[in-house]
């Protein structure tokens, strides 16, 4: 027990080890977070009136980010499945970094919810037992359970593996496998439930479509792993973590399929709305072409579509997919594309025009952007800190086989 404690603190000190570049990065991140806190203080004092959200568009940039990040979190499972179930060893070694990503993304999701609610002091009202959670009627109640459950499962898996490593022992698959198996349906469920959060809203035809959950999953399986591939390369470069090319390219291959499916789903939605041309297609019209000269989202969505198409073309060609230079370009394009399409491109048009036909063009304000960047900064800090903490153990684990 004492050795475990000593090891724990030793690993904590690793967080503070790093060159000037590392310290510079951490300094910048802390500054970004500090600015975010300042903006949040202003929002807490004046109210959400400092954002661009209004009664017409009651959910904005925060919820858009939340939606995107649920996808990132869900993607960790993508690595878990081949690693543990099919014993694809190269990926197995990067699973832990994927799980850290999941933990980080979920934490960011919860933060984005916290900055979005009007009375954050009172969120305890939605806890079970001490509060009055509206379960199973409210999809937010479901989201509460699956998000926190997924966070707990990933923390458990991560904690268990790191604990074993710190003892100098490989993990016992008998213990880990049940946790991993639970985490797979949970990863699907967080994304499905989040899609249902929108899909359940019959007042808004843009959201109330059955393809939303599959579309969410497809987009999650491109943006999440894409983000991971970029992070892994950084880890390889700066922390000399040994990640095999085989693992990287396997993930790239999976991303390619997911992106293809995602584009297909988007096409299906576009076809349905524009061909049928019912009044329910109004939001889609606003998103792609604007209504009455109100075209704020039009450049964004076309950028997203074009970026995703180019990324897909690059990824589809093995020559470019197996070349890190072109691969990275495609990954960045894809992340931006999905971020727009599934963030603002989903949340805002659903409420534009509003249910009474009032068309208010939402564009986030500066405080809103600063707070969001702050949350991303916190996410980056969480990820870096956790990786730094885990690295010595993962390195040590190289010495024994499992």
């Amino acid at each position, binding site marked *: 027990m004492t050795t475990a404690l000593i090891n724990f603190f030793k690993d904590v000190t690793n967080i503070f080890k790093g060159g000037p570049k590392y310290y510079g990065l951490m300094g910048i991140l802390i500054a970004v977070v500090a600015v975010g806190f300042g903006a949040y203080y202003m929002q807490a004092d*004046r109210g959400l009136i400092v954002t661009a959200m209004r009664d*017409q568009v009651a959910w904005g940039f925060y919820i858009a980010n939340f939606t995107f990040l649920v996808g990132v979190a869900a993607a960790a499972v993508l690595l878990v499945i081949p690693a543990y179930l099919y014993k694809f060893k190269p990926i197995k070694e990067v699973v832990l970094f994927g799980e850290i990503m999941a933990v980080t993304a979920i934490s960011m999701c919860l933060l984005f919810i916290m900055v979005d609610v009007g009375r954050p002091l009172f969120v305890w009202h939605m806890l079970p037992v001490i509060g009055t959670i509206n379960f199973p009627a409210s999809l937010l109640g479901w989201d509460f359970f699956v998000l926190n459950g997924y966070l707990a499962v990933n923390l458990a898996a991560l904690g268990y593996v790191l604990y074993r490593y710190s003892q100098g022992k490989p993990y016992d698959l008998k213990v880990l496998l049940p946790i991993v198996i639970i985490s797979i349906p949970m990863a699907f469920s967080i994304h499905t439930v989040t899609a249902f959060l929108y899909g359940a809203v019959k007042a808004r035809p843009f959201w109330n479509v059955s393809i939303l959950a599959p579309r969410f999953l497809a987009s999650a399986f491109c943006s999440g792993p894409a983000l991971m591939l970029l992070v892994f390369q950084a880890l390889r470069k700066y922390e000399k973590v040994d990640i095999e090319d085989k693992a990287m390219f396997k993930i790239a291959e999976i991303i390619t399929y997911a992106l293809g499916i995602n584009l297909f789903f988007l096409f299906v939605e576009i076809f349905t709305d524009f061909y049928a041309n019912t009044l329910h297609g109004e939001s889609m019209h606003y998103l792609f072409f604007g209504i009455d000269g109100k075209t704020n989202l039009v450049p964004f969505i076309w950028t997203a579509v074009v970026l995703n198409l180019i990324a897909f073309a690059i990824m589809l060609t093995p020559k470019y997919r197996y070349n890190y230079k072109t691969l990275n370009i495609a990954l960045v394009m894809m992340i931006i594309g999905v971020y727009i399409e599934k963030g603002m491109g989903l949340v805002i048009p659903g409420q534009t025009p509003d249910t009474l036909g009032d068309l208010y063009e939402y564009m986030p304000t500066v405080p809103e952007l600063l707070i969001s960047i702050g949350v991303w900064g916190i996410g980056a800090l969480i990820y870096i800190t956790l990786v730094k903490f885990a690295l010595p153990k993962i390195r040590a684990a190289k010495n024994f086989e499992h």
Partner: protein
Amino acid sequence: MKKMKAVFFTMLAVAALSVFLIQSGVSAQQPADQAKKQQQPKQAAAKPLVQAPDTVTPAPKMAFFPCSQCHAAMPANKTERALAFHTEIALKHMPAGWCFNCHDEKNRDKLKLANGDLIDYNDSAKLCGQCHGATLKEWQDGVHGKRTGMWNGKKVYENCLTCHDQHQPAFKAIKPLPAPEKPEKIIYKNKK
């Protein structure tokens, strides 16, 4: 014979049962009925326009009233013409018609129904109802016109003339109250 007997007894039994059922049903309903009666007393014998606990707003106060002050000494002029004195009255009610369709020639302080009955100015709804019968019924049911007060008790029925000008009954346009602020205009202002 046996068959008929059986039918007879069955009918008797059914009849007895139904009488019993009806009676028990009546006795069960009685308190409820009584309660209802207390809430809504029956219409008075004189057939007022509205039920008893409610009131009708009086006719709007007229500038020159009682009319008889001037008109008592004037002979009734039945020719249609531009009014020289009551210039405020422009008759845009019916395609044809004149003052004495509604006003009594002799007693100017009363209105006159088609059957010759004279009524008070405050009872003008009766006069309107002669032609606008369906509307009068709707007004009595509360689906036309306006009521204020209690939805489950004493209410004030707004008189026809609260909303309609008797001589030009078409509703007149009014100035709307300000439009809501556009969401772009709703911004933080320091109130401290």
